[in-house]
């Protein structure tokens, strides 16, 4: 893990998934061996547009800061990093949908961060070294170490306001479960779920993880017979504003560390829509059965 930093490429590029998985050996994923940087750089394809947003410098800076800030509580780094990663790596959804970009970030720019964030401490039961799962380096957008944070920020931001992102990413159950659900592709649904989560946290609810999972399940299954888009209409985001924000990356200062950055002014969700769904989801959450853990415990002890 002792990378000198000198060999980190200046700009992001695109690394095919087939190449990435080839280099993700057990030794690499357990942090015992370094990735073959030269071969990886040679296999990567460059990004045509020369804009400053593909520079790796500002990314390394926030990743290093996250590692030093959250040295004792690395899961907490997610809520801090997600909005800052999104505001640093400014791009459209179409651009963010390229797994090659995330592969490159994880393998060529910041493998140390992936290991730091996702390598479990201690030894596995069979005495072998623990290792990071391959999808954290190269995998689907809800698992890959950086893609999951960028997409969480994209799905939970309310226009320029990243506060709901902090709440959603501050809860690992929410982050891990909800990103897999298609229901949050509707912005008022995503924001209403965050508000319900916020209420649970504020009231100091017990078994928060179970409650969050029950909420996600309830919202998702109600969504199979209810069309939230009709109950809670919303506008299309303002594409020009998004493009302007992305262009601003050229001259924008690095993201602030102690307060939240501002996202694109591409329109906030309709208040009335979020309010209506919040009420509905609150009722669903109150009535949702929590997972029965007694059975499992009995089975475990048997």
């Amino acid at each position, binding site marked *: 893990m002792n990378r000198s930093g000198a060999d980190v490429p200046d700009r992001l590029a695109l690394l095919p998934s087939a190449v990435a998985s080839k280099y993700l050996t057990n030794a690499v994923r357990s942090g015992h061996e370094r990735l073959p940087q030269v071969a990886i750089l040679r296999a990567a394809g460059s990004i045509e547009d020369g804009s400053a947003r593909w520079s790796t410098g500002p990314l390394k800076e926030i990743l290093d800061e996250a590692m030093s800030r959250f040295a004792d509580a690395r899961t907490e780094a997610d809520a801090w990093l997600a909005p800052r990663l999104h505001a640093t790596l400014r791009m459209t959804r179409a651009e963010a949908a390229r797994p090659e970009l995330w592969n490159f970030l994880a393998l060529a720019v910041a493998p140390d961060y992936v290991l730091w964030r996702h390598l479990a401490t201690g030894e596995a039961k069979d005495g072998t070294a623990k290792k990071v799962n391959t999808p954290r380096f190269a995998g689907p957008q809800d698992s890959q170490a950086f893609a999951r944070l960028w*997409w969480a920020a994209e799905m939970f931001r309310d226009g320029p306001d990243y506060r709901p992102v902090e709440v959603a990413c501050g809860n690992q159950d929410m982050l891990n479960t909800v990103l897999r659900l298609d229901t949050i592709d509707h912005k008022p649904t995503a924001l209403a779920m965050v508000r319900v989560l916020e209420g649970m946290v504020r009231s100091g609810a017990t078994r928060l993880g179970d409650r969050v999972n029950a909420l996600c399940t309830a919202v998702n299954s109600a969504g*199979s*017979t209810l*069309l939230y888009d009709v109950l809670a209409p919303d506008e299309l985001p303002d594409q020009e504003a998004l493009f302007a924000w992305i262009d601003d990356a050229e001259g924008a200062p690095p993201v602030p560390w102690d307060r939240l950055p501002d996202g694109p002014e591409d329109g906030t969700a309709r208040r009335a829509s979020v309010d209506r769904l919040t009420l509905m989801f609150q009722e669903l959450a109150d009535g949702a059965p929590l997972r029965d853990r007694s059975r499992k415990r009995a089975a475990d002890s048997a």
Partner: protein
Amino acid sequence: MSTVYPYPTLAGRVDITVRQAGIDGKALPFSLISPREQVVALHLAGRDDWEEATLELEVGLPNDELADGPWASVACVAVLTEGATNSRTVARLERRRDDTRWRGEIRLRRSMYVARAVLQVSVVGSYDGIDGRVIGTGDVPWVVDLLARTAVRQRDIEIVEEDFRDGPQEWLRPFKEAPWLVETSGELPTVLLNTSFEGLGALLNGARGPLEKAAAGLVATQIAGDAWTAMFHSAVGDLEVDDDGAPQVPDGWKEPVLRAMLPDVFPGLPLADALAEIHSRRTEGHGWAELQSRIQFAASRRAQAPKNLTTALRAVSRPQEGAAR
């Protein structure tokens, strides 16, 4: 509609038609809209700088059933979605009083979609005091393909020619002696054909005479068999499980692959049971080896191996009339 609904739903057909499509205000040629396959192809050769596509929709609903039915405030909406970008665009369709069809347009923004969007229509109404209930959905959703130059639905496999030996893709060097490779980690499964493998491209693209055609057919069968096997294994390899540990039908290209092959691998088992079976065999290891012959059988059936092999054998045994060049 496969879900069980705890309230009355429409029995009649909901059919969707894309009447017209435009890109940045310019009409798309009709050849790029296929009503039969329900596909719109948005890739225009030489034009990569467009920002927005508009689809003009027309939807036929069972209007009599709606008028007599128990639902109130019925609305008809078009929903465009794509898994890769988590994007979702919704547009309301309207019906004029003197019209039988519901009409409207939906806009697809280039910055929000990347490869293949799905266009579905939902009919929504109030029942029993609850608003927004889905009472019907389109029989077959449309596919809006941003990368295709032709309006074809089945794009199971992408075929790309690459020079493994001297081409720009460094990672292909070690495979320079392989005639082809199947790559399943991307958005679409891809067969990479090695152009540095002499004669392969010429045979596949320009076979003449019965013997050459038979040989090309055999090679194509071989490639297809490899591709189906690889696709099957990678689709089974990252099945996601729900809270109860039941594997979910994956999305994208993996779904049709599993739907096509699982009935040959586990004859007689419904899809959900077959999924559970293959998932447990793979993760727990029991009976995995026994399954390989069934997977190989399923792949060779998809690749039409028996048919192509018979054709080739007949061509070889026939006297070599037209084949001499």
